[in-house]
Every structure is written in C-alpha cells, then in structure tokens.
C-alpha cells in the first residue's frame, strides 16, 4: 500500500513537469499533502497516540488544506496571471524530471548497501521531489511559483523524514512544523505587501545584482 502511495507521489512530480497552470500545481500540492497524510497514518502507528495524532493532523491540515487554499486565495486576490511562465519548455522539464528520477533511484540503490533502514523507493522519490522543488524555484519567474517550488521541496523532505526512520524522532516533527510556519510567514508577510509595493509579483527585479 505504501509503495503505491509513494509511486503516486512520484507521478505527481511528473505531472508537475508538464503543466503550466498554477491551479494544477496547487492541486498537485493538495494531492501530495493527502498522500503524505496517508503514509504518515500507515507508517507511524507505533508511536504514542498523542504524538501520532499531532503529526497526522498537522500533515493533513497544513499540507493538504491551509497552505494550498492560502496560495489559491493569494492568486485570486492579486490577479496574478494563471500560468507559471517557465523559462524552459515542458518537454525539457519532463526529460529532466525523468533523469532526476534515474539519479534518485541510482543513489538509493547505492545507499541501500550502506543502510538497511532505508527504503530505496521512498528515498528515490523523496530525493527527486527535492530536486524538482529546487528546479521549479530556479526555472520560474513568479514569486508564487517559487513558493510552490519550496513547498514541493518540503514535501520531499517530509517523505525522506518518513523514510529515514522507522520511527519519527520528535525533532523531525518540530522541523516540519517550523517549515510550515515559515511558509505561512512568507505568504502573509511578503506576498501581499510585495504585491502592494511592486507593480506585479514577478521576481526579476528582485534578482538583480548590484
């Protein structure tokens, strides 16, 4: 069951490479949030129920509901164009994503020799999600796409956290909640205010050096 969920997570990354619509990317975030919630429920049953319910609820509420809703709301309010306007073509993006998967699994196979704790499938997909997140940040101009890229990166890290330990150390949990906090802060503090300060929420003006 977990394998099927992880594979769906991987497929969502491939889908993210072929879509140009912000709305679809947000749907992907919701889907990933739900998948991570299900994996959490299936994998972390052996820890005490309080900690378990905190992690599971946090994953469901933040990753699958609040943050995607918030980004959607920001897009609507700020009249941002609904396309991501990537600087590379979809074909290139998809080809690169496939290569990233190959690299991720290659690394997982290599690492499988070192550690028995690790599930290569999960590691490969998590690693690919991290790279994909960074790729979205680099290849897009919109601030909102950067934020979506960051959240995909974070989802990958969460999957890796689930993969790394058969039990979740409390520190992983704290880390994830702090990451969520920062996403909210980024959104609340900056998107609205940058929108009001700048003519539009594109970032080229922010990336100039000197």
């Amino acid at each position, binding site marked *: 069951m977990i394998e099927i969920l992880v594979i769906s997570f991987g497929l969502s990354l491939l889908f993210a490479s072929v879509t140009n619509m912000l709305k679809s990317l947000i749907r992907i975030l919701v889907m990933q949030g739900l998948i991570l919630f299900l994996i959490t429920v299936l994998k972390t049953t052996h820890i005490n129920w309080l900690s378990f319910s905190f992690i599971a609820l946090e994953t469901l509420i933040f990753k699958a509901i609040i943050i995607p809703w918030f980004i959607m709301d920001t897009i609507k309010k700020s009249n941002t164009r609904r396309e991501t306007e990537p600087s590379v073509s979809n074909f290139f993006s998809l080809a690169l994503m496939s290569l990233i998967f190959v690299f991720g699994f290659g690394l997982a196979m290599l690492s499988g020799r070192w550690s028995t704790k690790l599930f290569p499938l999960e590691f490969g997909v998590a690693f690919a999600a991290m790279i994909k997140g960074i790729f979205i940040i680099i290849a897009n101009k919109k601030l909102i796409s950067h934020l979506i890229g960051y959240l995909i990166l974070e989802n990958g*890290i969460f999957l890796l956290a689930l993969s790394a330990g058969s039990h979740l150390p409390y520190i992983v949990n704290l880390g994830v909640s702090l990451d969520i906090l920062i996403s909210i802060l980024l959104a609340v503090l900056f998107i609205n205010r940058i929108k009001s300060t700048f003519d539009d929420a594109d970032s080229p003006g922010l990336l100039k050096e000197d």
Partner: protein
Amino acid sequence: MFWILFGFPLVCLFLCFAIKSNKQLDMLVFAHSILTLSVAILAYIKGAQIIRMDDLGLFVFIITSVLYFAVALYRFGGEAHKELKAYRIHSMFLIIFVSAMTAVSLSRDLGLIWIFVEATTLASAMLITFDHNKSSLEAAWKYLFICSVGIALAFVGILMLVIAQNDPASLHLGVLMQKAPELSPFWVKMSFVFMLVGFGTKIGLAPLHFWLPDAHSEAPAPISALLSGALLNTALLPILRMGKLMRQCQLEHISNTVFQIIGLLSIFVATVFILKTKNFKRLLAYSSIENMGIILLAFGSGAFAHYAGYLHILGHSLIKAAFFLTAGNIISLYHSKYHKDVCGLLMKHTPSGWIWLIAFAMIIGIPPSPLFISEFMIAAALLKSGSYIQLCLLFGMLIIIAYGIGKISFKMCLGSDVSAQKLSPQKVIAPAWLLIMAAILGLWLPQF
C-alpha cells in the same frame, strides 16, 4: 545562570508591551545587552560549564555578547523620532534575535541548533524590514526565501546523519562523536555536503551568497553589524561542529578539500563584486563574504591553521561591526549609501573619518590587526602543506580586494567638505571600542 540568560529576555519581551517611549525601549535593550555581556565574561572566567556550554559555543557567545553591547550602546537614543509601535516590534525582535543566537551557541544537539538557526532567520528578517521601503522589502524577501531553502537542505543533512547511524539514533554531538567509528562513511559525507550547502547559504558562501549583500546593506546599521559580526559566526558553528565530526570519522581529507574549494570560490566572488559595487554598505557585505571564505580556507588547511581560523572569526567580527556602525554614521551625515555622494568625511566628521580609515587598514590585515596574524598563519599552513596554487590565488585576490576597498575608502574620507557636523558621542564610542579591542587582541594573542 542558564535561566537568567533566557528568563531575562522573556521578561524583557513582556515589559516591551508596557513601555511608553522609545528611550525606555533603548534602556531595556541596553540592560539585556549588559546582562548578556556579564554572563559571557563570568563564563569566560569561571569556565563554560556554568552556562552548560562547550568551549566553541562559548567562543561564539562571547563575540555575540560583545557586539550586542556595542550595538545597544550605538542605538541608544538614536531613534527617538521613530513611531513607538514599529520601534517596539523592532526592539522585541532584536531581543529574540540575540537570544536565538545565544541558544545556537548553547545547543549541542544538531536538531536544536537547526531550529534556533531557523529562529534567527525569522527574527532577523523582521529587523531588516524596519525601514519599510521597497528595497528593504526586496532584501528581506530574498533573505528569507533563500535562507529557507538553505535551511531545508541543512535539514536533509541532519536526516542523513540519522540514516548514517544504527539504532538508537541521536543527534547529540557528544553521542555522535562517540559513535563516529561505526557511522556509515557514505552517509556522513552526504550529510556533510548538505549541511555545508544549507548552513553555508546562511553564511553567504558562494554560490548561494546573493541574498547577503542586499540584506546586510538594506538593514539599519546596528542590525547590519550584528548580521555580519555575530550571525555569520553563529551559522558557521554547525559547520565547524560537522568538520569536527568528519575528523573524528577519519574523513577530514574530504572536508578539507570542500572547505578550500568553497572558501576560494567565495573570495573570488567577493573580489569580482567589490571592484564594481557603488554602494559602500554592499562593499562591506562583500568583504564579509570574502572573510567567511578565508575562515573556511583556514579550517580546510590542516590543524595548524585552525587557530588562524578562530582568530580570523574574532578579528573579523569586531572590525566589521565597527565598520558597519561607522557606515551608519556616514549615512546619517550624507543621507546616501553611494560612495559617489560621500566626500571629505574627515572634515565633515573627523572621528568617523578616522574610524573608517582605521577599520579599512585593519580589515585588510595591517598590524596590529588580528587578521594580519591569522592570514600570516594561513599562508604558513598553505606553504607547509605544499598548496602553492591556493596560496597564490588567495593573496592575489586579497591584494585586489585591498585595492577595491582602499580606493573607495580614501575617496570617501579625503577631499574637502566645509559643513562640519556633530553626532552623539556613543556613535563614535561604540565602533572605536570595538576597534581598540581588536587591536589589543592583535597584540596579545588570545589562547583558544
């Protein structure tokens, strides 16, 4: 002692709400800085154990507390015209920022260190946006976003360190050091690279440096001094601790090579931008990137150069903080951050002009600057290990950087300006005190 260190800031935060004037806020921050400095001095005299720190943590904590004291003194009474509500939030975040840095020095669990480094990012982003203008918002956005990505990668490094261990896993540094022989070398190496990139983003190491000049130049001068002098060291701390773990795992040849490459790359980036920058605060920010590169190079040049690394951290923090505080003076005198608008500083405000020139001389390593000794020792270490190419590259770039900073500094200080102006005494005392301390340390070398 431990509870005072964190209990007092908590009380201060509550007191901030009751305070009704900017001056009282300044007094509160000043009181906090005195307390932090007293604890640091006491811990130095009586031993780091009284605040449950190790020596490396105490070293960074002492630098932070000295700089915080100078900054609190510098800003005392300087912002009376600011709106009370905004200034209250600014002061509260300043207290949170310093407490978070203290907590990083104190923690010996990598998970906790990670969380507190994240907390310093959040608090300092609020401090950078104090002026609420377009460029400070840009800078804060860039800072927050790039550092969040960096900190996420550092977290991956921490997860990899968990993977590297057999059960029961721990992130406590003491336990990790004991477990070093049985850690999986593959995962420790991976973890090291991710942590270096992650925390390195926060230090402004190339190629993830591009937020640093914006953040350091757009923040108010006292905040820039803390960002450059204290926060960079704090973020360097986990990397140094990982370096120790790599040595313990017999993997130092890898960490040394990576340190050297990234160190030289950072110095190179700084060299290029120092020559073309038009903003003197950005100039100082690029100089911070350069010095962080030198520090990394020192830690990558074998055990002999480690002392040089620590001395360079100390010297750079004191001198750069003095430099940034003086930059604040210049901005309040000329109302511009561009060096083309600044001329005749020695005539307009003589003490600031002299402090600027002395700080320039000390940052490029002219004795009695501690940076002279540290750079000399790095050169010796590089010679000893036969790294002649690195040595030539380093000193070639240092000469270009000295030329770049010197050209602008002399242009700013010399020339004629008839309208002499006065500044409040603490605006001179604070940076002068830091430079005097740096000079004393350069003459009586401290033992680490």
